[in-house]
């Protein structure tokens, strides 16, 4: 099948059996790949009510048709599962080179099922697939394990590995790859850990079949030309996502001290240009990317290196914790990566704990003696390690802020900044209704990557609630995640503003199938409804209350900064949802109606 690896590898960890099946043509036609395959498998194969950390849950790893190809951004693979963090849908998109290697090994999806009796790693070398003993690797940090595999097997192998975080089933444990890329959110690393899979090591030497090689070469080269000539190329490639730190600070979107404000007095030393000048050594990129956003850094103070920090980590582990020193943020980033926990959820959870301490809800007895003040760098480092090991306060924080605040009570739930149990990522939304709605309705929880709408808020009026704003959020939600479906990165379109129609002839030349972006957005809309139905299936009381944002954003105006005194209201929150549900074809409680399911052709899938 042109553009595809051709096979799905099924790994039954309980029995130790590995089987391959051909990727069905109609699956590729209707769900395309990546995240599309993920939700299809999740609905069909993980039974309702499965324990995310139990034997019935599965981990679906999928590449897409542009993965491994001469297409800018062809370097992403999707990791889909039932989320330990939220009990709902999890999908994490991992960059680097792993997805390309899947295609070269002839694989579109790898499915991990069951639970292994002993720690293992999955070894793939073209058609040779084996489970191998990982007992001497269990307990080790991710960087050391990746290095060990690279030295033993060679640099052509691509490695995905969990750290102690995943082994210890931290709710937001991640999976690491290429010394700096992650399948980050929702606890995908904990699912891998629950299955006792330490790593996947993969190598392939097959060529990917292509429908029309010459047209593909020309179309691919045209995409590279467009990226290189983009007006924004230099700025974007110099700073990556850190380019928005200063701007977010100016407009009150930089999460500060547990999202109590959106402007941070220390933002200058967290900015993109400051960071580049002081710690960046290499622009490190994912597969086939002409605009590498990875900033590989050296922290002299700590004698260490890390890929990062990028904007999210600067926000959540920097300003959100009252830390202004970029080297310390980079070190926090490294600790999280090496131990295998998501920097966003970890930074958010630590910020919550710091506010508990500030308010006297925690005393030093609760913090294992740590003086958990905002700005205490050493306490942050200690707490990251405790979270990964689930020790002391770390055990509570490892459950995520929704569960932790429920256990602690005393009003701490009011400032647990999450939606659906996923910690909010790097944008403070006291007064930015489109971005707030984006967080409220994102299909994995409070994550920004589906619909990034802050600039739009500023452009048209941040407090406005209009059908146009909602329409914009919906369009972004149908469109942006399609990059996850085709196996690539959205940031060339997002940051360089290249003409997205340039992808169309390239994809057609690869797969032999003509798809416009309108066609892809229709697939996006279908997937959006399927993930919504998944949440509803798994949670009895799922509905509007699950879409509500943290109370902070409708009760607690910042006392400082660009959004001082500004706040949304609960009435506005519900009005946003009213308009959103209507435009989506959902009920007043936020569930896809029978008519919508029918009109999107989804009846068979959700039967």
């Amino acid at each position, binding site marked *: 099948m042109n553009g595809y690896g051709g096979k799905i590898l099924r790994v039954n960890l309980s029995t130790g059996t590995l089987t391959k099946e051909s990727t069905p043509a109609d699956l590729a036609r209707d769900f395309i790949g990546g995240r599309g395959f993920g939700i299809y498998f999740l609905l069909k194969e993980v039974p309702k009510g499965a324990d995310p950390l139990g034997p019935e849950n599965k981990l679906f790893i999928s590449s897409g048709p542009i993965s*491994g*190809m*001469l297409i*800018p951004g062809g*370097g992403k693979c999707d990791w889909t599962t039932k989320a330990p963090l939220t009990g709902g849908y999890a999908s994490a998109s991992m960059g680097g*080179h792993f997805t*390309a290697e899947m295609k*070269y090994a002839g694989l579109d999806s790898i499915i991990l099922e069951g639970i292994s009796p002993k720690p293992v790693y999955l070894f793939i070398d073209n058609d040779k697939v084996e489970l191998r003993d990982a007992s001497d690797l269990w307990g080790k940090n991710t*960087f050391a394990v990746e*290095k060990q595999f690279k030295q033993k097997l060679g*640099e*052509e192998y691509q490695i995905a590995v969990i750290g102690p975080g995943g082994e210890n089933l931290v709710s937001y444990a991640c999976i690491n790859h*290429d*010394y700096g890329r992650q399948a980050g959110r929702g606890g995908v690393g904990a699912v891998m850990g629950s299955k006792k899979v330490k790593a996947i090591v993969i190598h392939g*030497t*097959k*060529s*990917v079949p*292509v429908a029309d*090689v*010459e047209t*593909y*070469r020309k179309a*691919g*080269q045209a995409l*590279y*030309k467009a*990226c*290189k000539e983009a007006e924004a*190329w230099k700025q974007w*490639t110099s700073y990556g996502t850190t380019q928005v730190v200063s701007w977010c600070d100016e407009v009150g979107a930089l999460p500060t001290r547990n999202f109590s404000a959106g402007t941070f007095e220390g933002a200058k030393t967290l900015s993109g240009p400051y960071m580049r000048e002081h710690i960046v*050594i*290499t*622009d*490190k*990129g*994912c*597969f*086939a*990317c*002409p*605009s*590498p956003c*990875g900033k*590989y850094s*050296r922290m002299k103070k700590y004698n260490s*290196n890390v890929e990062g920090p990028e904007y999210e980590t600067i926000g959540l582990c920097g300003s959100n914790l009252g830390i202004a020193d970029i080297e310390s943020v980079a070190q926090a980033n490294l600790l999280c990566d090496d131990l295998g926990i998501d920097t966003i959820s970890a930074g958010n959870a630590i910020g919550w704990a710091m506010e508990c301490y500030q308010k006297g809800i925690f005393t030093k007895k609760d913090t294992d003696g740590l003086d958990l003040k905002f700005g205490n760098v050493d306490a942050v480092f200690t707490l990251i390690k405790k979270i990964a090991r689930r020790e002391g306060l770390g055990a509570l924080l490892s459950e995520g802020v929704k569960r932790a605040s429920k256990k602690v009570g005393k009003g701490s739930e009011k400032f647990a900044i999450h939606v659906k149990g996923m910690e909010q990522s790097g944008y403070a939304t006291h007064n930015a209704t489109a971005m707030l709605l984006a967080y409220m309705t994102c299909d994995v929880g409070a994550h920004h990557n589906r619909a990034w709408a802050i600039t739009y808020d500023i452009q048209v009026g941040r407090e406005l609630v209009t059908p146009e704003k909602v329409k914009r959020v919906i369009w972004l939600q149908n469109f942006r995640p399609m990059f996850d479906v085709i196996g690539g990165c959205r940031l060339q379109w997002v940051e360089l503003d290249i003409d997205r129609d340039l992808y169309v002839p390239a994809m057609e030349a690869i797969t032999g199938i003509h798809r416009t972006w309108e066609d892809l957005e229709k697939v996006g809309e279908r997937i959006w409804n399927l993930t919504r139905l998944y949440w509803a299936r798994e949670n009895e009381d799922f509905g509007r209350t699950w879409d509500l944002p943290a109370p902070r954003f409708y009760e607690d105006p910042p006392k400082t900064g660009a959004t001082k005194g500004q706040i949304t209201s609960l009435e506005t929150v519900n009005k946003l949802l009213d308009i959103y549900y209507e435009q989506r074809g959902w009920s007043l409680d936020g569930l896809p109606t029978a008519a919508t399911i029918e009109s999107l052709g989804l009846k068979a899938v959700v039967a």
Partner: protein
Amino acid sequence: MRLYVDSTKCSGCNACRVACSLNLFSENNPKKSALVIEPHFPSPGVYTVKVCTQCGDCAAVCPTEAIKQDEQGAYYVDFAECNLCEACVPECPEGVMFVRAELANTAWKCDLCGDCVTVCGTSALWIAEKEPVAV
């Protein structure tokens, strides 16, 4: 003319190697490419890239005269003439002479097509006159 590289600009993306395999073999398979990217991570955290300098040492030892020069003077492998003897491989000072029998029944090398330069986002690669001093 020859290919040059500034490794400090390399991001490790491998677009060059995909473009190269498409040129040499009309296949999408960066393992069948003629440049080498060596990652050095986690420390010091840089990539080093090896490219063909068009020195001609490979051609000098080829017993079947399979390595020829085109109109621009660039050395390339005539796939039909190669017998996989591998005499060329150790001669290459940059390690960019390739024989992998499981991937192709011929040796292969850079033919100076320039597609890698076209797709390199960071402009780490360029083609220019050969200079007297070897890089």
